[in-house]
Every structure is written in C-alpha cells, then in structure tokens.
C-alpha cells in the first residue's frame, strides 16, 4: 500500500482559507473533480485559484466559482463559465486574464526555481500593463514572473506507490507543471500500481513532487 495514499479529507485537511491553489485541467479534461468536491465540502474560502480556465458552472473549477470560494482567479479563459464573468464585472471576484502560454511558463518557472521568463506574447497589448519590458537582441519581451502555490490539485491517469505519475492523452495539460510549483501536491488518480510497474522512461511526473495520492471518486465516510 502506498505511504502517500490519503482520503480526500486527509489530503486537504490543512488547506486554510486564503490559500493559493493551482488546479489542473483544460475545460475540465484532466481536472481533479474528487478534490474539488472536497474543497467544496470543507467550506474553504477566500482562495486564490490558478488554472487554465474556470470550467463550467457545474464542473471543474467552475463549481468553486459558483460557490464563491475564490477571492482571486488567474486563468487564460473564462468564457465557458458565465458566472466568472458576472463576478468579475460586479467586482465580487478579482479575475486576472493571462495568455495561456505565459501561464504555463509562469507555473513552470515557479517549479523550476526561476524568477521568471521573457516572452514576446502580449507586447503591444493591455497584457503589458505594469510589467517590465526587456529588449534582447533588438526584440522586446515582457518579464513574466514565476508563480507558486500552497496547493496543487492535479489529476493523473496512473500512479505507482511512490507517486510517480503518468497522464493520458489531452488530460496532461497543466498538471505536470503545477506538480512542480506548490508546497503540497495532491494527485487524484484512476489507479495505483506497485513500485516498478512503470518504466522509468514513461514517467512524466517523478514521485518526488507528489505529497499525497487520492483515488478518483473515493469518498470519505
């Protein structure tokens, strides 16, 4: 049995109000719904949420938005969840829109110990507001700083007992990046296999990044 295996309740027991939480997935493909369910249950609020999008009102990060658990959201797209737009316009929730490739690099930088990256994306648009512009070899770039979080809630296909993870198809997206960038990383998985069953070359997220494993669909009593 994996030493990292927890129930959802155990895994998120120490998540406090006001925490910064990264959540994997792309329009709910590769989103840890069981962990989101637990955040809803335990009534954690004032969260800063970081994710590609805000899902749908009844799925993914969208459920946390509808339940008003976020004080701030960083995402590249909120169009599939009208409630996010409503809260943004009403001034109820701060929404920061970030180009998708920039968000990916910011999260990766946070995990990789980099202070940030220089990207050409957003130059000449409102995205550049308040950011440092740096010229390298005659081309202008925006300095986009690293992002880190208290928690990363991610979804993987399979784990071994050490927490090594593999992903399936389009569910990978932000999950391996977020796995690097948070103090506590909880991976929701379909299946846990014995150590040695995954080939070292096929592992995408080494287990050293993973704090806890939770089985998808597992409920606490």
């Amino acid at each position, binding site marked *: 049995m994996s030493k990292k295996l927890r129930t959802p309740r155990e895994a998120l027991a120490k998540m406090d109000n006001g925490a910064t939480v990264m959540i994997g997935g792309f329009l709910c493909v590769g989103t840890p719904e069981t962990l989101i369910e637990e955040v809803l249950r335990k009534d954690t609020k004032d969260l800063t949420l970081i994710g590609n999008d805000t899902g749908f009102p009844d799925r993914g990060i969208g459920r946390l938005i509808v339940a008003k658990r976020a004080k701030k959201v960083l995402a590249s797209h909120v169009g599939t969840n009208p409630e996010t737009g409503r809260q943004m316009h009403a001034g109820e929730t701060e929404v920061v829109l970030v180009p998708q490739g920039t968000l990916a690099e910011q999260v990766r930088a946070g995990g990789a110990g980099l202070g940030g990256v220089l990207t050409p994306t957003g130059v000449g648009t409102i995205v550049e507001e308040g950011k440092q512009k740096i010229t390298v070899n005659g081309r202008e770039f925006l300095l986009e700083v690293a992002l880190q979080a208290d928690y990363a809630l991610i979804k993987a296909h399979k784990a071994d007992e050490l927490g090594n993870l593999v992903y399936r198809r389009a569910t*990978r997206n932000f999950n391996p990046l977020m796995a690097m960038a948070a103090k506590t990383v909880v991976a929701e998985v379909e299946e846990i296999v014995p150590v040695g069953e995954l080939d070292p070359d096929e592992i995408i997220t080494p287990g050293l990044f993973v704090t806890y494993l939770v089985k998808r669909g597992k409920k606490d009593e």
Partner: protein
Amino acid sequence: MSKDFARERIARRIAHELQDGMVVNLGIGLPTWVANYLPSGSEVLLQSENGFVGLGPAPLPGQEDPDVTNAGGQPVTIVPGGACFDSAMSFAIIRGGHVDVTVLGALEVDEEGNLANWMVPGKMVPGMGGAMDLTVGARRVIVAMEHTAKGKPKILKKCTLPLTARQQVDLIVTELAVIEVTPQGLVLKEVAPDTTVAEVVAQTEATLIINTVKVMEV
C-alpha cells in the same frame, strides 16, 4: 448569402493555403471548419493547444474518448503518429515558431496587421486563451472571418478594441475577398465571383491596395 454558406467558403479557401508537412493550429469556431476541406490523404499536421499534435476528425457516435478533446472541449481523435504533451511544450511549439500556420477568428483587423479578437470592454471578456501566443508565435497568421458584422466593416484603418497582438496578421480571408497584409498596407488579392472590387472596397474601412485582383476559388 447564408452565414453557413459564407463560413464554408472561407474555410474552403483557407484549406488551399495549407500544404502537406505543415504544422497548423486552427482556432475555435470557424477556423475549425478548415479541417473539413483538406484533401483526403492530406499530410497537414494539426496542433491542438490543449496538448497534442495529430488532431483527427470527430469520433463516431459512441466512440468518444473523454480524454481526447480539442481546445474547444469537443471530442476528437488523434491520428496515428500523433503525440501528446503538457501545456508548456504545447506553447513552446506555438511561441517557438514551430507552427507554420495558425487560423484565427477576429472581431477587427487593421491596416498594420493588428488583430483584436479577445474582448469587448464592458461586454464580452472571455479571455485570450492561447490566441495571443498563437498570433505572436506562428510563422503565418491567417484571419478567417466574415467581411462585416451587422453590416459594419471589420477590416479597419485602426483597430478600436484591445489588441490580441500587434502587426502579426499575414492574410485575411472573408467570404468576399482575400487580402494580404504587407509593409505597404492591405493588398486586395482576390474577390469572390459573386461580388466586385468596388463592393469589397465599399465594405472595407481600411484602404485597399489594388493591383492585379484574381477571382477567388470558391
């Protein structure tokens, strides 16, 4: 002309721009249609920014795989030889100039090749998603859009909406015309068989440079 008829024509014309071996990213909505008009046996490689290359046609009903969707969240397939990756790699491919062509919708385009397609202040603010990276990173940016919106021109002297990217558009394809963005300005290359140069000029706010104009293949 019905909306669908216009959109089909645009998609069909853009398909001619895509050659075997090219890596192509098709935006959500109208650009997605382009895939339907690639010749059978086409070796255009479609990149899906949510995390793979080798985007294939929609699956047969009942054969959907919930883990295989396009950037719009719709079920798709992965062709043999496709490859999956994370979002950092996906945008390394996009930003790094490894996508030959991206096809994107637009709210406005202007004479400098500026593009606005991600927000209308105070109204629609869905977010830029991957559009800013695609526009800056792809080697060639093709805008696919209807020529006007509610009778008002979308090809302007200067964009009025917040930009997606500055000076990145290379080609504009509408149901009426094909327009190339050059350092000198917008060059009218083709007009549709059911319209005239004068009509296209009338429906375009931007100045069009007119030399040899061909009939658009539709």
